[in-house]
């Protein structure tokens, strides 16, 4: 064992952890930031992407070291597999994302009081609005002029950058659908539309996932570097395995972690921030059992690991009635927002639909060869189809449900002897009704676009947005953290990340994660 002291120990060097570390280090705190995985170099990931057979496998270029495995490491125990795709490395899963950076809607924070379903957050949209603005500045978000395009989330200032110009396909999409009454908007994105924060403007390589080749797209490794420059200490390849407390189980006192060689180390900390994502954070809390805390750390409510939420998605692909040339510019730019909110949410899941700006060149080519085409006809058909094949995807909200949960396996261990996470997961009729309506929308959109060869993907899959597993609420009997993201059980234990979400809304959680992390940093520096 070795020991080190710090003011704040942060577990997880992804988006939330990096922002908290940066802000606290700027304030002069002694900060230690742990991550289970290694540092990554962008050039290495680009090289691995070029060598990867499956370019559409967004995890393929990323290492999955034995001590911090990914993918099938999460054991599936439910009626439906929970899609748990996350990068265990410094910077986390912001290494590959479309960088879409929506704010939640005000109604997302008060689902129970507004629509009679789900839960209310103990904070309102207005409490988070200043931090949304800060998050957009820190990450560098480009978005439409609020005077011209209302995205439904009130804001006091414009985006730090103007929205990137839409691709030809996105413009055609918007023009056609708006003429038929759909509300189509440009999505805000943490991807530079102009040079910003010493990073270049997006060059339209159309490779946001799995790896932006230039760094125009925001990655949390950028804030890890800023945190280190401000004095924070990063320990990579450090797999947290036990949160320690005092004998009474009241204050957290430190943390044990395991190195890849199996040896253990301990860090003593005045406070701990768990920012290891919606699977790893609850798992760590559950395995941190002691005589004083037989249910694990922060779990007097029994809520740790429960209320697991994701965004479900179903899709549609089709041949447009004219060439629209997908794959120019970023991978996602436009969304249909008619179904993000409304009275229907009392009985049916809300959703956001988005146009996929990726060309399925390899898939189209392989299919045509398999059909027996060759020579000029093969090439003519490749050009014809790739220029017309389009797809729409969506995020369908899910309500918190106690039965959907992450738990720590009692029998299956990882290579370091640490329990693996188990996911117990299913979807309910609220989601199914949302799926049904989404498929109906897809059919209508396809008709508007004059589409042929319409293929619906009606069986839902997840989006790897792990939310709700250390849920926020005012009542310690039913929530893990309070409105400050502070554990109800341990005044010096905090949680950052989407695991504190009390609802999932219809947009990816990243900007809300960032806003909550910045708010948490303020709480801590104010004397937390």
């Amino acid at each position, binding site marked *: 064992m070795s020991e080190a002291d710090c003011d704040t120990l942060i577990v997880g060097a992804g988006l939330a952890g990096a922002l908290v570390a940066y802000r606290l280090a700027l304030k002069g705190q002694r900060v230690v930031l742990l991550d289970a995985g290694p540092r990554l170099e962008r050039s290495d990931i680009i090289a691995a992407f*070029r*060598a*990867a*057979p*499956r370019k559409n496998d967004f995890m393929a270029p990323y290492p999955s070291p034995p001590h911090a495995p990914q993918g099938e490491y999460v054991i599936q125990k439910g009626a439906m597999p929970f899609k748990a795709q996350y990068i265990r490395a410094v910077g986390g899963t912001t290494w590959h994302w479309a960088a879409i950076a929506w704010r939640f809607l005000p109604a997302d924070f008060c689902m129970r009081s507004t629509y009679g379903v789900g839960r209310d957050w103990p904070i309102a949209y207005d409490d988070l609005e200043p931090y949304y603005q800060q998050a957009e500045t820190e990450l560098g978000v480009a978005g439409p002029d609020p005077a011209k395009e209302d995205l439904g989330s009130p804001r006091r200032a414009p985006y730090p950058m103007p929205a990137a110009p839409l691709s030809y396909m996105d413009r055609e999409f918007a023009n056609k659908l708006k003429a038929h009454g759909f509300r189509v908007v440009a999505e805000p994105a943490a991807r530079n539309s102009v040079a910003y924060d010493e990073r270049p403007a997006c060059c339209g390589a159309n490779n946001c996932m799995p790896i932006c080749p230039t760094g125009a797209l925001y990655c949390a490794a950028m804030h890890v570097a800023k945190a280190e420059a401000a004095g924070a200490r990063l320990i990579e390849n450090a797999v947290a395995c036990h949160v320690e407390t005092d004998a009474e189980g009241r204050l957290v006192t430190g943390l044990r972690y395991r190195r890849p060689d199996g040896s253990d180390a301990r860090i003593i900390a005045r406070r701990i921030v768990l920012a290891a994502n919606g699977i790893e954070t609850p798992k760590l809390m559950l395995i941190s059992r002691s005589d004083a805390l037989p249910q694990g750390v922060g779990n007097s409510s029994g809520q740790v690991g429960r209320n697991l939420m994701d965004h479900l998605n179903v899709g549609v692909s089709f041949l447009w009635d004219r060439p629209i040339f997908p794959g120019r510019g970023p991978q996602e730019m436009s969304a249909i927002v008619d179904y993000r909110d409304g009275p229907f949410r009392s009985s049916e899941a809300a959703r956001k639909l988005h146009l996929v700006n990726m*060309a399925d*060149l*390899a898939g189209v*080519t*392989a299919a045509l*060869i*398999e059909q*027996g*085409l*060759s*020579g*000029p*006809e*093969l*090439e003519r058909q*490749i*050009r014809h189809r*790739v*220029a017309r094949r389009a797809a729409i995807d969506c995020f369908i909200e899910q309500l918190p449900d106690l039965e959907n949960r992450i738990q720590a396996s009692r029998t299956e261990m990882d290579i370091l002897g640490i329990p693996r996470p188990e996911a117990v997961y299913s979807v309910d009729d609220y989601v199914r009704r949302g799926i049904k309506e989404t498929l109906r929308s897809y059919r209508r959109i396809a008709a508007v676009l004059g589409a042929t060869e319409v293929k619906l993907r009606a069986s839902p899959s997840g989006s790897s947005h792990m939310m709700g597993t250390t849920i926020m609420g005012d009542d310690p009997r039913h929530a893990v953290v309070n409105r400050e993201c502070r554990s109800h059980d341990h005044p010096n234990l905090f949680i950052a990340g989407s695991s504190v979400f009390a609802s999932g809304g219809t947009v990816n959680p990243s900007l809300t994660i960032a806003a909550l992390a910045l708010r948490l940093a303020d709480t801590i520096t104010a004397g937390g």
Partner: protein
Amino acid sequence: MVLMVPRIAAAQAAEPLRPLSKDMDVEALLALSRAVTGHADLSAEMASRMLAVLAETGRLANVSALYDALRLAGSNAQAIAAALKSDGEGGAKLLLRGWYTGLLPGPKGPILIGYEDALMGRVVADLPPDHPKR
């Protein structure tokens, strides 16, 4: 198979396939590939990787069978068409998949043999139709 016989026949006529004295080598694979794809400027490096993967995955015989059939067809367009249409061992599809997508099937999934040189990228490149890279 929808065959563009004139183009293939032209390639074939320009470069008759020689009898193989032993196993297929890179030059022979390139000559066959030029005939099947109609592209004259194929990457020798990619051909070398293709040859290695075909040998490792036990599929070289499929391609050799196609080579023999096309060699015997000579410059006879109908015979070339018949040889490609029958493609009993799947050699033509293998070559087309390899050259166009840069992937060949392997026991545990596709194996990458090329990325920038894969023909599919050239087909959709933002280049004029008469550009030499097309």
